[in-house]
């Protein structure tokens, strides 16, 4: 066999020899196993990944019978960013009728709960209208985005300014106050959309601002599930481990900083999350085989322990999908097939 064409994590093409490809697969899984303290992929699994990357076809797919459910984040935004002139209900109709979407997701262009709160009264009738004309289940999605709660965008002192000044306790207090406010906004917006008939809620990119962001997502889920026991909540993460920006926050006695997907999902289950969306960020300096092997190692450990459905994040820049606005289908299809076939997944 000659060289195998694949890509780096940023999408740049690269040709690897067979031994280079296998070396990248082995190093990717070893890196993830070492970081998350989970088992690396077996030789059979690595050989399967090798065959996926060595396939001469530009597009590959799972074997019939292994298909999974797809859920989405920021659905209308994906079209608006390309300046396609469609409104949000039309976006959902296109996803449902033209793109084979299993679920739909309504979201606002300013995709965070805080800015949605004052305009939620305009979001509700849109959701109600969308529910009249579509058949697939509709989520409403947004991010906790704790960054919006610190100065100059929000009311609380900016921890990123306090920490370099050595004001650690003040920074921690600011994170805690921000998390409490975020919980109120998430609960308010999600309650409103659920009472308008939404089938579910997506808390997206949870943990983007660190452990306080993750805590806000978990606490909001807990409150919402007590209020609406039948509510479906999909909680999607921001990265493979929780950044310890605060460092001392806990949920149900478990320290949040540094948690990897197999431990994140346990807390998500305790908080009442219905579907968990773990993430592994793509390293643009490494090859796609390295990234996919690494991502699958994290996700396999998570899927094996999860009691709830797991939908792994496989959008741009995560799950070994290249960090480029136009993800190449050769890598996306290989990542999709490899992830679904090796992990015991319920969806993407």
């Amino acid at each position: 066999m000659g060289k195998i064409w694949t890509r780096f994590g940023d999408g740049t093409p690269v040709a690897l020899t067979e031994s280079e490809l296998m070396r990248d697969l082995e190093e990717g899984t070893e890196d993830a196993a070492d970081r998350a303290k989970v088992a690396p992929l077996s030789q059979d699994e690595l050989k399967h990944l090798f065959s996926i990357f060595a396939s001469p076809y530009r597009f590959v797919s799972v074997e019939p019978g292994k298909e999974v459910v797809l859920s989405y984040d920021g659905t209308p935004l994906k079209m608006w960013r390309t300046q396609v002139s469609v409104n949000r209900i039309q976006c959902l109709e296109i996803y449902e009728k033209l793109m084979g979407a299993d679920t739909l997701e309504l979201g606002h262009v300013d995709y965070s709960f805080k800015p949605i709160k004052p305009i939620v009264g305009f979001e509700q009738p849109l959701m109600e209208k969308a529910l009249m004309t579509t058949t697939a289940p509709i989520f409403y999605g947004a991010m906790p985005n704790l960054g919006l709660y610190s100065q100059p965008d929000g009311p609380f002192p900016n921890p990123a300014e306090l920490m370099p000044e050595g004001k650690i306790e003040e920074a921690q207090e600011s994170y805690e106050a921000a998390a409490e406010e975020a919980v109120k906004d998430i609960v308010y917006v999600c309650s409103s959309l659920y009472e308008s008939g939404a089938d579910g809620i997506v808390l997206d990119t949870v943990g983007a601002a660190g452990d306080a962001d993750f805590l806000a997502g978990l606490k909001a889920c807990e409150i919402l599930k007590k209020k609406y026991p039948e509510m479906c909540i999909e909680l999607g993460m921001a990265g493979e481990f929780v950044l310890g920006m605060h460092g001392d926050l806990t949920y149900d006695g478990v320290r949040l900083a540094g948690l990897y997907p197999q431990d994140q999902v346990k807390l998500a289950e305790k908080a009442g999350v219905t579907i968990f969306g773990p993430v592994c960020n793509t390293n643009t300096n490494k090859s796609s085989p390295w990234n996919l092997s690494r991502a699958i190692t994290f996700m396999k450990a998570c899927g094996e322990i999860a009691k709830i459905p797991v939908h792994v994040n496989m959008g741009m820049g995560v799950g070994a999908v290249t960090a480029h606005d136009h993800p190449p289908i050769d890598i996306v299809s290989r990542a999709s097939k490899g992830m679904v076939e090796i992990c015991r997944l319920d969806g993407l």
Partner: protein
Amino acid sequence: MGDPLGMAISHAVASGMGGMRAAGDLVARMQMTRGMKIDEAKTYVADKLNVAVSDLTDPVLMTEVRQDLKIGTLHPVPNNPEGIEAKVKIAELLDIDINCVKRLRVS
């Protein structure tokens, strides 16, 4: 970020269930309402539709099944339910509560 063809469409073709071209929306509902894992959700839906699990992603077979059961089809059929009317039928067929259907009945 990322464009719909590169992500959503590629995943739908590579590993998705096909949405309402087939039975993807129905399997999704069982994950969402009952927290079922994928195999359990597929088996549940297949039993309710009286088809094999392998039929659930077949757009030819499922179009006929969806039309017969009046649970919404990709191409609208005259006098067949669409939108929320189809969801009323789906709720009955799958024996689940669908939030908007429940609220419609209450109002």
